[in-house]
Structure formats: structure tokens, C-alpha cells
């Protein structure tokens, strides 16, 4: 249908000159209205419009005054007057004629008269009184159309005081046989209820009758009244719940006549109305809510059609479900529904999804978790509205841990859109909540940025409004309970009040001074805050009241032990008394100017030369002084680190005042000089964040000194990536992957959400302390950087190849089978792992990791070198290195080895038999097989004795540093009879995730008459042998995802097949090769979970988030184990390349 409409509308311009259009009807363009319309369509400027309409108004005026004007003409005149008013030109002289037309006109003329009245007049217009009689007459008319018209106008506009005059007649209409009259009467009563609720008190019972009307239209009309009534006092209408539920059930069930359908959806707007009513009824009322669960579920289920309207209903339904008393099952379905919205490619639905999320996260912030990535993407969406809605959502999930990132995003947004009402609103309220939430933990530059934002910019209306908003909200904050507000917020408040409270005209500065003074008196206000407050007071003390107050304050603080406070109090004292000086130092309007700082302090030259002449010592730089001190070997009374800040804080009065005008500088000096212990205390409480700041800051100089002093023997530490990307040191952004930034953003945004109830399904939840969480990230990101740096890795791979060829040569000499499958690539990867772990010495348990890595290469070296020497130094040994891998193994002819599998393992998946070692002694054959048990890998070693003689003193030893091996053979191996097979079973789990490990085996035995002999072999086991699927739900996945701190991201090749989506095909390939569990596939994203058998229990989880992006698969792995994502990624890569 809409296509048709669009086509028709698009043909318009050509139609304008024609009159053959059916709709143009009886009006010829030559009529006065036709002329006006023609004139309007030809308008090109506002000026022309004014000219045209003025002329038109004059013509109308003349016409209405003429006694010869017929009602028919009057109707046309009214439409012309409506046009004029629509364009913004008052046609008040025609109002009376509109009423006259309603009075005297017939049918359509009357209707247009009423229409003009409803468009021209509002409830307070006295003209309306002239209408009452006409309305009354029409209401009593026998002509239904007249009654209809009258009821319509009554429900649009009617003088409140005249309601009693027509109320009885309208009431009477409630029992009218025609549904349209009943319906309009109900709507008229609704209007009366809106403007004069008391007047309709007595007819509430009649509303109920309307609700039960047999006509759905009348019933629907009564819902307007009930929505209003229930909204105002839900308690009084709980008994209606069952009725509402029944009605909704019937509507949803399609019991209404077909013409109520909209695109085959039964009365959708009615459904929405009912859902709203149910929300009010069920809110905070379990009993009532229980009555509606069924119908709500039904609504959710029935609205499966893919149409905007069904989504509108779903949205309302979700809202209702989250408003009424919660029912887990429903909530889950509703959350799923939101997921569909959020993930929808349709932008309108995405918006609605975000809005729904914004609504529901107020109940449960964790609901945002499954949608992290979408939210992050929306944050960078090109559509500003989506962006804005996302910020609104973030604002709702703000907590102490993610506050910094969110604020930073807000500020970014603000910078981008400087003039927007909604922005002011959003940022204003967010900053408030953000400051009060996390004020003390945030980095000092956040409030500074905020203040600069307030101060910067042209003095536009928006800026003014924003500042006024800030002042207003802060004043009301200070009037409330202030003890709980963070110190930093108080500082921001004082600065803003000091600067901008003059914008608030009705507020005299005395009130604000009193509020500030109250802050000073509070015991828990810190010294630093106090100095900010005093600074603000200095700017404010303009009238006598404040001066008196200032004097009080000064007296108290000029004796303070804190020099800064004393200084400030002194300034306040002097400036409050000398208004002239104050006006000069702190010009009220000049605050926006950029101040030029005379860094050479040339204005002090005179003073300096005077002082020098008077015999003062010349200035020495702090370093010089230190050196001097060191040479003199005198005692240093100050801690070394403070030498710089101290010099900063000891600047002159004028400097400080200048600083006071610039928020950044002020905070810097106060931050450094004000209270050293406090700063370090802040650092202690939020190790992570302030840590990051210090380092970042340090890049610019301060820390550089420290580093050179430290002479760091430790390897270069990957900095914990600072939360705020703009401040990233350049060294870290070598190969900045945007995706990586996104995931970092995600983890920092959603950091506080899941941590409280991180459900660990693995049974062994590793508590991840906050300060530890971040550290390994440097390592893992370093790893991905390194692997993406192709030149680097290829170089190292080349080296490895060299090494490896040696290794391989000698290894194959010693052993065959598994070991030879090691490819250069694998080894290079292993070496990479090694360097990676070296790169992050901060990872806990690091020493162990390094040791293991080291020993790994050691072992390999041993295999290569020691083995041959071993055989040489042990001449008695029968073991001789074979020059070539043995082509085949002799097997005992009769039975396949697999028949020797223990019964309990026979049903499980297992690998092919691998021949292990066949030395010169053909009488003994070894082979191995892996059986994949749910909780462990079982390695079976088959020992085949091909001779007649029994082998004695059998002992099999398996060793590997990375593995936990335990022997589960029923009876300890002692001997193997002639021509028989013996099986040794070992369960193996990984101690630490690694790409591939070598299991070294030693079988010692003795022939009846011979010397003790030994056969050595090695078996390589890959990580994928230890991976098992992890069955979790999407919800659990979301929670786990958040609680894992080690992550890695990489783009992988997509597998393309003919009959499958690339994503599904790729995931299936991964699933079959690596035993992963595909949790869910939604659109272009898929989530996959697995666990690594490790230690006791069920193992360690690793989650994969896969997204198809530009023909690659962007995989993001997360795990609580540092090495796991790295190793697993390698296998994923390999699996996909092989496919």
C-alpha cells in the first residue's frame, strides 16, 4: 500500500497545475481557496509568504463582514483562515464567524465550523461560551451526525465551567443504541475527567458499564479513562485486573471483528493500551501480577510476525513484564526478545532495543552483558540518535568501576555536539550521578576535563544553559545531605558555583556562600576541598552579607595549620575587604578569556634585582640544589620524590590567583601541593587506574627521570593499558587494532556488572582480584601484536626453523612417530609463547611459567643431544638409534591391538594407534592410543612382546613437565609373557595450557637372560586433545564472559561451503576438530565455549566470540587462564587452514 502512496505522491509536482485530480474535487483552482493554495505552493520566500497571507487576511476580513456571504462561502473562508493560522498568522477576527458557522451551517459547513473552533480556540477562550448553546442543541438533535459532531468538539475543547450544562445529556448518550455515539460520549467524559475530575466523580459506575460494552470500540474508549484512573491510584482498581487480562486475552486471541486488524494484527494499539494498564496494576504487587503472567506470555508468543507493529507490541510487553512483579521465566523470554531487537539490522528496532535495555537494566544491570559488543558498536554508530540512546543506557549502568570510561565517552559526545538540549540534559545528569558515584576513584583529569568543557567555548545560549543547569543542580545538591558526596565532586561543585553562580539571577551569592560555608564546617571535608571552597568564596564575596560571612570564615582558617588553607583564607580576607582589588584580580565577566601566562616571570625582575642587590642568594634550580645538598652531605629533610612538586607549590600569590581562573592549572597545583598523603591514598584504593595515570603521565617526562634513576633491570613492562585511549603512550599503539580497543572498551565499560555474581560453572572459580585482572592483558595484547607483526614473526620463525631442523634430525634419530609430526610452524609458535610469557613478568605465578618455558627448550635440547650420547655412554644398552624412521611395525598377527582396550574405555572416542618406538629389537613393539574421556585424556601404551620369552622387570615411566600424569593400570606392570600384549593406562591432564607438549616415555625391561634394557620414546600431545566442549546457556556465557580477564583477538579465515552459511560452516569445522560447543549463533555472530582439562575437577573454560566481518572471522577469546586463549587460537587457526 505504501508503495502506491509513495508513487502517487511523487507524481505531485506535475499535478499542481492540473485540476483533473479526483481529490481536488469540486474546488476549482479559480476559487478563492484554489488561488490561495496555488499561491502557497508557489511561495519562495518568507517575505512573499507574509505578503500573500496579509493580502489573504484582508480579503477574508472583508468577506466575513459582508452580509451577503453564504454559509457555503463561509465554509471556504474558514478553511482559508485555517491556512493562514497554520502558517503562523493570527486570524482572530474569524473566530466569531467559526462559531456562527457551527451554529447556522448545515452538515459539512457545521462540521467545518466546529473544526475551525477546535483549531482556533483553547479552553480558556471566552468565545467558547458562545458555543455552549449550539453544542447543547446539537447534542439533543435527532440527527446522529449532529450529535456526533457536537460530541467530537466537546471532547476536544470545551469550557470547564460549562460542563454541568451539558453533562446530563452526554451521560444519557452512554446508553445510546449507536455504538459511535456511546463511544464519543465516553471520550467526551474522558475529556471532562481530564479538565475537571470532580465533575464526573459520580459516573464511575457508568465507566464500568462502558468497559463491559458489547462494542469493542466503546470498551477501547473507556480504557483511556481507566489508564488515567489506574495511573493515579492503582490500588482502587485492582479488581479490574481480571477484566483487563480477559480483554487482552480476547484481543490477542483474535476475537475482535476483522476490521480492527491492522496488517492482520488484531487491534495492536488496543493491545498496547491494555499492556500499559496491566503494567500499572501489576507494579509492585505480586498477587495481581500473577494474574497476568499467562496473558503476557501469550502476547509475547503470539507476536511472532515480522512486522513493525508486532515489535511495537513486543516492546510494550517487555516493558510491562519488567514493570510488574518479576517472574523468572517471563523475564528470560523478555530478555531474549530484547536481544532480537538489539541485534536487528533494522535501525528502528535497534533503537527500541537500546531503549528497552535502558529500561530493564534498572532492574538488572547484568541484562546488558550479552549485548556488550552491540552496545560498543552502537556507541560509535554514525546515527547520533543511536549514540545518544546508548549513552543513556550506559548512564544507567554506571558504577564505580566503569565510571571513568563512561564519563570519557560522554565528554567525547559533548565535544561533538555542542548545541543540543538533550545533550545538556544527558550530560548534566550523568555528570552528577557519575561524580557522586565514583568521584573519589576517578582520575583527576576527568573532573578537569568536565570543568574545561564548561568553561570553554563561545558564550552561546547553550553554554549558558549548561552552566546554569550545573549551578542549579549543584545548589540543590548542597541543600541536601552533602556528607556522602565525594571530595572531587565537592571540588567541582565549588569551582562551578564560584564561576557561574552569577548566572542564576534569583540566587543571591549570600545563599551560595552559606552553602559553601557549611561545606567548610563539615568534618569529613578534606583540606584540598576546603581550599577549593575558599577559592570559590573569594570569587563570590561581592555583597555585604557574603563579606561578613567571609570574614567569619577567614578568622577561622587564617590560623589553620595547613599553609594552603591559610594562604587561601588570607586571600579571601584581603580581597573581600578591598572590592576594587577584587574586581581587578577576579573580573566577573572576563573569565572566558585565555590567560597568557608569563612563564619567565618577567614581572618579578625588578623585585629580583632589588633582592639580589640587597644580598639575597641567586636562584638555583631544584636539581642544582639537590646536587649542592649532596655535595655538602647535608641532611635532606624532604623526601626526594617531592622536590619538583614542592617547587611548584611555592609560587607567588598572583600566580595562584591566575591559576584559580584556570581549572586545570588549579587542580594541578592543588593536586600536587595540596595534600600528598591524600593523593597517594587515592592511589592505594584504586591501584589499577591511578597506576595507569602515573605511567602515562610519566611518559611525558616526570617518570622518565625515575626510570633512568631506577636503571630498570627488569624487562620492558607492557604498561597496563590505560583506560582512556587518548592518553595512550605512543609506544603502545604500534599496531593498534580497532577491535582490540573495542574489546578493551567493552571490558572496561561492563567491568562492574558481572563481577558480583560471576557464576563459575566450572566449580573451581578462581577469584580474580581486581588489581590482578588487568595485568596480564599487556601480555596477551603483546602476543597478538607480535603475531600480527609478520616480519617479526617470520624472522623468528626462520631462526626457529634453523634450530628445528637440527632438533628434528636428531630427534628422529632417537624416537619416531609422534615427535616427527612437529612442524616448524608449531615450534615457532611455541617459541612465541615463550617470548610472550616473558613479556609480561607481572603475571602471577610467572616464575613458574618462565621455568616451564625454559625447561621445555631444555628438554628439547636434551632429546636432541643427550639421547645419542646416552646410548653411547651406555654400551650395554640394546637401544640403537635408527637412522630412518621404521616404515612399519610388526604387529602380533592374530588380534588387533584395539581389542585390548579396557571395557570402560571402549565406548569413548579415541585416536588411531600410533606406533611409538621400534628399535633394533624386533621382538618388542610399542604403540600408543589416546582415549578422550570427559574429564581426562587417557593415554594407552600397548606393549607387544613378539618373542616367546617373557619380559620381566617391566616398568613404564611417562614424564612431562606440563602434564599431570597418573597411572591407572589395574595391576602394576611386572611382566609381559611371550606373544602377548600388555596395556598401560595413564590419565593425563594439562598443568598449564600449551600448544603442544612432548610426553617422554621410558620403558625398562629385562629379558630372561639378558641385561636390563630400556626403550625410550616420545609422544606429542596437542592442546586440542585436552579440549572438551563446555555446555552453557547464552546467559551463563554472558556472565562468564565478563568475569574472565585474559583475552585475545584475531581474525581467522572463514570456511566456505556450498550449502552452509560461512559462519556456521566455520564454527562447525571448529567444533568437529577441536571439540568446541557452539552456544548460539545469532546473525553474523556466534558464541562458542570449551574447557581445557587441567588439574583436578572439570577444567578451565575458554569462551570464543566469533563475528563475521569483511570475509574474515573475528574471533575473540576469553579465559581465566592466561595461556589458554593463545594456545587455543593457534589450534583454531590450524584447524581452519586445514579445512
Amino acid at each position, binding site marked *: 500500500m505504501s508503495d502506491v502512496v509513495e508513487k502517487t505522491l511523487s507524481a505531485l509536482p506535475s499535478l499542481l497545475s492540473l485540476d483533473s485530480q479526483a481529490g481536488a474535487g469540486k474546488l476549482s483552482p479559480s476559487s478563492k481557496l484554489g488561488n490561495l493554495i496555488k499561491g502557497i505552493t508557489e511561495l519562495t520566500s518568507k517575505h512573499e509568504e507574509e505578503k500573500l497571507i496579509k493580502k489573504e487576511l484582508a480579503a477574508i476580513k472583508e468577506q466575513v463582514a459582508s452580509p451577503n456571504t453564504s454559509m457555503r462561502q463561509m465554509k471556504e473562508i474558514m478553511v482559508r483562515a485555517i491556512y493562514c493560522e497554520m502558517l503562523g498568522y*493570527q486570524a482572530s477576527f474569524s473566530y466569531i464567524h467559526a462559531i456562527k458557522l457551527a451554529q447556522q451551517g448545515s452538515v459539512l459547513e457545521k462540521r467545518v465550523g466546529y473544526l475551525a473552533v477546535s483549531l482556533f480556540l483553547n479552553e480558556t477562550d471566552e468565545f467558547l461560551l458562545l458555543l455552549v448553546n449550539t453544542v447543547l442543541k446539537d447534542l439533543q438533535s435527532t440527527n446522529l451526525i449532529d450529535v456526533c*459532531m457536537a460530541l467530537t468538539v466537546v471532547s476536544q475543547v470545551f469550557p470547564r465551567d460549562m460542563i454541568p450544562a451539558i453533562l446530563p445529556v452526554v451521560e444519557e448518550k452512554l446508553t445510546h443504541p449507536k455504538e459511535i455515539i456511546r463511544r464519543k460520549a465516553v471520550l467526551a467524559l474522558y475529556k471532562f475527567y481530564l479538565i475537571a475530575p470532580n465533575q464526573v466523580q459520580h459516573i464511575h459506575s457508568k465507566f464500568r458499564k462502558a468497559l463491559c460494552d458489547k462494542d469493542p470500540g466503546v470498551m477501547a474508549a473507556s480504557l483511556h479513562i481507566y489508564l488515567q484512573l489506574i495511573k493515579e491510584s492503582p490500588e482502587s482498581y485492582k479488581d479490574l485486573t481480571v477484566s483487563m487480562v480477559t480483554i487482552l486475552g480476547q484481543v490477542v486471541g483474535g476475537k475482535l471483528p476483522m476490521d480492527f486488524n491492522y496488517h492482520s494484527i488484531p487491534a495492536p494499539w488496543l493491545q498496547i493500551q491494555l499492556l500499559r494498564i496491566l503494567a500499572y496494576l501489576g507494579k509492585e504487587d505480586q498477587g495481581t501480577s500473577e494474574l497476568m503472567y499467562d496473558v503476557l506470555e501469550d502476547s509475547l508468543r503470539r507476536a511472532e510476525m515480522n512486522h513493525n507493529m508486532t515489535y511495537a507490541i513486543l516492546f*510494550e510487553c517487555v516493558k510491562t513484564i519488567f514493570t510488574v512483579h518479576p517472574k523468572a521465566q517471563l523475564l528470560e523470554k523478555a530478555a531474549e526478545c530484547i536481544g532480537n531487537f538489539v541485534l536487528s539490522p533494522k535501525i528502528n528496532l535497534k533503537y527500541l532495543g537500546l531503549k528497552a535495555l535502558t529500561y530493564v537494566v534498572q532492574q538488572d544491570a547484568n541484562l546488558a552483558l550479552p549485548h556488550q559488543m552491540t552496545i560498543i558498536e552502537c556507541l560509535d554508530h554514525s546515527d547520533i540518535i543511536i549514540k545518544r540512546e546508548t549513552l543513556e543506557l550506559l548512564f544507567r549502568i554506571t558504577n564505580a568501576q566503569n565510571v571513568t570510561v563512561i564519563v570519557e565517552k560522554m565528554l567525547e559526545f559533548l565535544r561533538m555536539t555542542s548545541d543540543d538540549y538533550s545533550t545538556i540534559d544527558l550530560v548534566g545528569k550523568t555528570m552528577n550521578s557519575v561524580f557522586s558515584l565514583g568521584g573519589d576513584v576517578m582520575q583527576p583529569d576527568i573532573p578537569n576535563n568536565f570543568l574545561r568543557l564548561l568553561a570553554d567555548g563561545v558564550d552561546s545560549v547553550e553554554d549558558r544553559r549548561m552552566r546554569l543547569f550545573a549551578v542549579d543542580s549543584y545548589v540543590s545538591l548542597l541543600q541536601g545531605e552533602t556528607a556522602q558526596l565525594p571530595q572531587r565532586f565537592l571540588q567541582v561543585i565549588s569551582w562551578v558555583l564560584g564561576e557561574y553562580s552569577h548566572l542564576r539571577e534569583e540566587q543571591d551569592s549570600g545563599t551560595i556562600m552559606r552553602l559553601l560555608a557549611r561545606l567548610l564546617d563539615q568534618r569529613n571535608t578534606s583540606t584540598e576541598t576546603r581550599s577549593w571552597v575558599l577559592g570559590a568564596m573569594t570569587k563570590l564575596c561581592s555583597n555585604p552579607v557574603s563579606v561578613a560571612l567571609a570574614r567569619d570564615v577567614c578568622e577561622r582558617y587564617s590560623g589553620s595549620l595547613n599553609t594552603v588553607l591559610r594562604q587561601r583564607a588570607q586571600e579571601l580576607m584581603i580581597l573581600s575587604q578591598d572590592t576594587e582589588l577584587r574586581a581587578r584580580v577576579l573580573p566577573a565577566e572576563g573569565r572566558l578569556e585565555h590567560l597568557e601566562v608569563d612563564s619567565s616571570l618577567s614581572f618579578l625582575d625588578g623585585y629580583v634585582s632589588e633582592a639580589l642587590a640587597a644580598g639575597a642568594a641567586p636562584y638555583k634550580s631544584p636539581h642544582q640544589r639537590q646536587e649542592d645538598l649532596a655535595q655538602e652531605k647535608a641532611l635532606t629533610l624532604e623526601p626526594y620524590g617531592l622536590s619538583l612538586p614542592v617547587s611548584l607549590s611555592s609560587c607567588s600569590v598572583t600566580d595562584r590567583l591566575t591559576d584559580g581562573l584556570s581549572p586545570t592549572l588549579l587542580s594541578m597545583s592543588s593536586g600536587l601541593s595540596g595534600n600528598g598523603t591524600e593523593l597517594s591514598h587515592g592511589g592505594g584504593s584504586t591501584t589499577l587506574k591511578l597506576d595507569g595515570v602515573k605511567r602515562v603521565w610519566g611518559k611525558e617526562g616526570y617518570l622518565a627521570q625515575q626510570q633512568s634513576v631506577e636503571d630498570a633491570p627488569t624487562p620492558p613492562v607492557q604498561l597496563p593499558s590505560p583506560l582512556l585511549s587518548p592518553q595512550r603512550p605512543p609506544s603502545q599503539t604500534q599496531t593498534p587494532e580497532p577491535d582490540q580497543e573495542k574489546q578493551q572498551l567493552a571490558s572496561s565499560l561492563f567491568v562492574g556488572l558481572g563481577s558480583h555474581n560471576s557464576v563459575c560453572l566450572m566449580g573451581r572459580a578462581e577469584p580474580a582480584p581486581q588489581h590482578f585482572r588487568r595485568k596480564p592483558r599487556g601480555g596477551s595484547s603483546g602476543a597478538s601484536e607480535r603475531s600480527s607483526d609478520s616480519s617479526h614473526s617470520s624472522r623468528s620463525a626462520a631462526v626457529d626453523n634453523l634450530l628445528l631442523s637440527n632438533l628434528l634430525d636428531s630427534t628422529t634419530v632417537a624416537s619416531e612417530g609422534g615427535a616427527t609430526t612437529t612442524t616448524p610452524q608449531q615450534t615457532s609458535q611455541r617459541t612465541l609463547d615463550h617470548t610472550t610469557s616473558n613479556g609480561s613478568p607481572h603475571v602471577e605465578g610467572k616464575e613458574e611459567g618462565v621455568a616451564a618455558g625454559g625447561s621445555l627448550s631444555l628438554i628439547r635440547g636434551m632429546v636432541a643431544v643427550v639421547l645419542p650420547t646416552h646410548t653411547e655412554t651406555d654400551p650395554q644398552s640394546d637401544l640403537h638409534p635408527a637412522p630412518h624412521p621404521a616404515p612399519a611395525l610388526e604387529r602380533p598377527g592374530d588380534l588387533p591391538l584395539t581389542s585390548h582396550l579396557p571395557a570402560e574405555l571402549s565406548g569413548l572416542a579415541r585416536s588411531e594407534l600410533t606406533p611409538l618406538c621400534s628399535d633394533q629389537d624386533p621382538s618388542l613393539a610399542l604403540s600408543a592410543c589416546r582415549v578422550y574421556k570427559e574429564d581426562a585424556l587417557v593415554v594407552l601404551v600397548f606393549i607387544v612382546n613378539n618373542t616367546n620369552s617373557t619380559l620381566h622387570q617391566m616398568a613404564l615411566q611417562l614424564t612431562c613437565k606440563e602434564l599431570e600424569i597418573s597411572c591407572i593400570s589395574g595391576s602394576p606392570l611386572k611382566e609381559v609373557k611371550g606373544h602377548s600384549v600388555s596395556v598401560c593406562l595413564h590419565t593425563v591432564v594439562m598443568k598449564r595450557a600449551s600448544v603442544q607438549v612432548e610426553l617422554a616415555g621410558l620403558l625398562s625391561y629385562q629379558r630372561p637372560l639378558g641385561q636390563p634394557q630400556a626403550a625410550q620414546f616420545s609422544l606429542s600431545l596437542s592442546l586440542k586433545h585436552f579440549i572438551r566442549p563446555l555446555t552453557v546457556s547464552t546467559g551463563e556465557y554472558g556472565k562468564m564472559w565478563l568475569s574472565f580477564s585474559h583475552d585475545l583477538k584475531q581474525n581467522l579465515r572463514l570456511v566456505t561451503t556450498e550449502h552452509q552459511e560461512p559462519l556456521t560452516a566455520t564454527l562447525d569445522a571448529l567444533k568437529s576438530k577441536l571439540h568446541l560447543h557452539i552456544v548460539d549463533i545469532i546473525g553474523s555472530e556466534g558464541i562458542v565455549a570449551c574447557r581445557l582439562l587441567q588439574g583436578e575437577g572439570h577444567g578451565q573454560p575458554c569462551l570464543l566470540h566469533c563475528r563475521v566481518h569483511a570475509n574474515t572471522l573475528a574471533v575473540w577469546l576469553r579465559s581465566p587462564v592466561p595461556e589458554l586463549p593463545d594456545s587455543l587460537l593457534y589450534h583454531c587457526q590450524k584447524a581452519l587452514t586445514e579445512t
Partner: protein
Amino acid sequence: MIKFLLMVNKQGQTRLSKYYEQVDIEKRPSLEADVVKRCLSRKKEECSFVEYKDFKLVYRQYAALFIVVGISDTENELSIYELVHNFVEVLDTYFSRVSELDIMFNLDKVHIIIDEMIQNGHIVETNKNRILAPLLALDKMAEAH
């Protein structure tokens, strides 16, 4: 709640306006210009809802004609978006293929249709037959006259 309904063409000229909240006549043109500017500047792939001052705009384009509805924050945007379409479908039925010119020449009738659908900012009727019934009756009576 619906605050106003506008029909505006691509040039930003108002073809119909209906307010459900008191706005001074003098202030309407600038409000409309502002509203139209916001909607016209949006790209096709951007969402059809715009935040504006303390309310929201829902807009839908039919060829050169925009229909913009101002709503309060509590309103369901998508249901209004579809209400607009329902309205256009009603117009299409009545005018049998509606055009901008139809709307201009029959401003009174379009208003009568809107009056049946929306009152006091609430959706009061969405059943097409019922929306058109009073207007069709009026037409019949006028013809008989």
C-alpha cells in the same frame, strides 16, 4: 502522549499541523521549521526517531511528504510510526490514491479524519471503517443537499 502532528513537504513547507498541547500561533512556524530541519537532515538509513527538546519526533516519509509526530518520552515510538502509516492508509482509501494536492485542497477533511483518530493526544480510533464513517456520512448528506 502525542503533542503534535505535522505534514510537511521536502521544502519544509507545512501542509497540515495539529497541536494537542497549547503552542502560541506565533511560535509554531519556528518550532515547525526546527522540527523539519531535524527530520530532513536525517539519512535514510538512520532511525526514524529523533530526540528533540524534552520530547521525541517520529517521522515517516511518503515521497516528498513527511509526516512528523511529536510525542512524549513515555510513548511507544514504533506504535506511533505505524499509526502514521495507518493514517496514510486511511487517506489513501478516502482519496483513492492520496496526493499532496488532495491534502491541500481538502485540509478540512484531513482534519476531520485526524479528529477521529487522535483526541487530546491519545489514539482513539484505528479501525479504518470507523475512522471514515462520520466523514462519509457527511459527504453523503452534503451531496443530498
